[in-house]
């Protein structure tokens, strides 16, 4: 399974036609303690770079964007009840949404892990 990243610090792990989406450790560090996660309803269709869901941390409501176009097929109910899991495991248990990928070709607009690491270095 391959990880890809956006400039807005979302990640997507691709397994065939399914993409699992979350936010990166860098995003979590910037957001601070996460207190609420608003997830989309399964069945919703999103386009690449559209708002997918939202997170509240330290009284800041932040939009999270879809790395790829697709249809939401599952959300992580665990983070709805325990949003702090996104802080403790952003690339593991703290995943947010699973989508059925509409256009695998959109991946070329994302970064792989090495490129994302370089991107982060450029921000600091």
């Amino acid at each position, binding site marked *: 399974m391959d990880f890809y990243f956006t400039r807005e610090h979302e990640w997507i792990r691709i397994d065939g036609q399914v993409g699992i989406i979350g936010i990166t450790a860098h995003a979590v560090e910037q957001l601070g303690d996460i207190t609420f996660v608003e997830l989309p309803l399964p069945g919703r269709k999103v386009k690449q770079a559209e708002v997918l869901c939202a997170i509240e941390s330290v009284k800041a*409501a932040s939009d999270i964007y879809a790395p790829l176009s697709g249809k939401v097929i599952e959300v992580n109910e665990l983070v709805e009840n325990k949003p702090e899991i996104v802080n403790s495991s952003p690339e593991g248990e703290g995943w947010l949404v699973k989508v059925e990928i509409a256009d695998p070709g959109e991946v070329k607009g994302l970064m792989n892990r090495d490129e994302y690491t370089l991107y982060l270095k450029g921000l600091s």
Partner: protein
Amino acid sequence: MRSEDRGSGSKGWRLIDTGPLDGPSNMALDEALLTCFDPGSSLPVLRLYGWNPPAFSLGRFQQPNGVIDLERCARAGIPVVRRVTGGGCIFHAEELTYSIVCTPGQISDIVGVKESFRRLCGFLLLAYRRLGLSPYFAVDSPAGPARLGERTALCFAGTEAYDILVAGRKLGGNAQRRTRGIIFQHGSIPLYPALSQARPYLRCAVPAGATSLAEEGFTMAAEVLK
């Protein structure tokens, strides 16, 4: 409404003073400022306003159940509006409210939420110091670390790292929205105590840990404070 551009070139700020408006108008104007802000070309915005009539606002994701009696508010003609920002329920009566719209690049490339609160609330610390108060951020509390960051139904019930305290009591509150590379921050400067006025409409416990400028010995109109 008064609107002017202050400063020059990319370092200027747009100051908008709308005076007091009703709750729905206030929230609509804030949303319009956020929606119309272009991160690539807009000047950062500082809007100052008040509330007439007094109103409750709920945080972006907050459900009113268990927090506020909507029917009682409706009977009393008290508007209940939703903010674009996070945080909890606030009763807006005699206060000066501000909203800031900017990009991280316009505040020294500060991206982190906590650091941006410290930066964007800095002007409040300066203003309070000019009045002769001794304000400080909760995270810098001389009393040592408190319980920070807990999600609470009422904005003034919880304390975040960069909330402003005076002698241990919270003076106003601040909340943000992050979207499209834009930081939108709301905040309030309570001129007079308002919680007793709000209490009959609340369905949750009202804490005693908040203060206002009047309670700190400064009675003044919003126009004077500006």
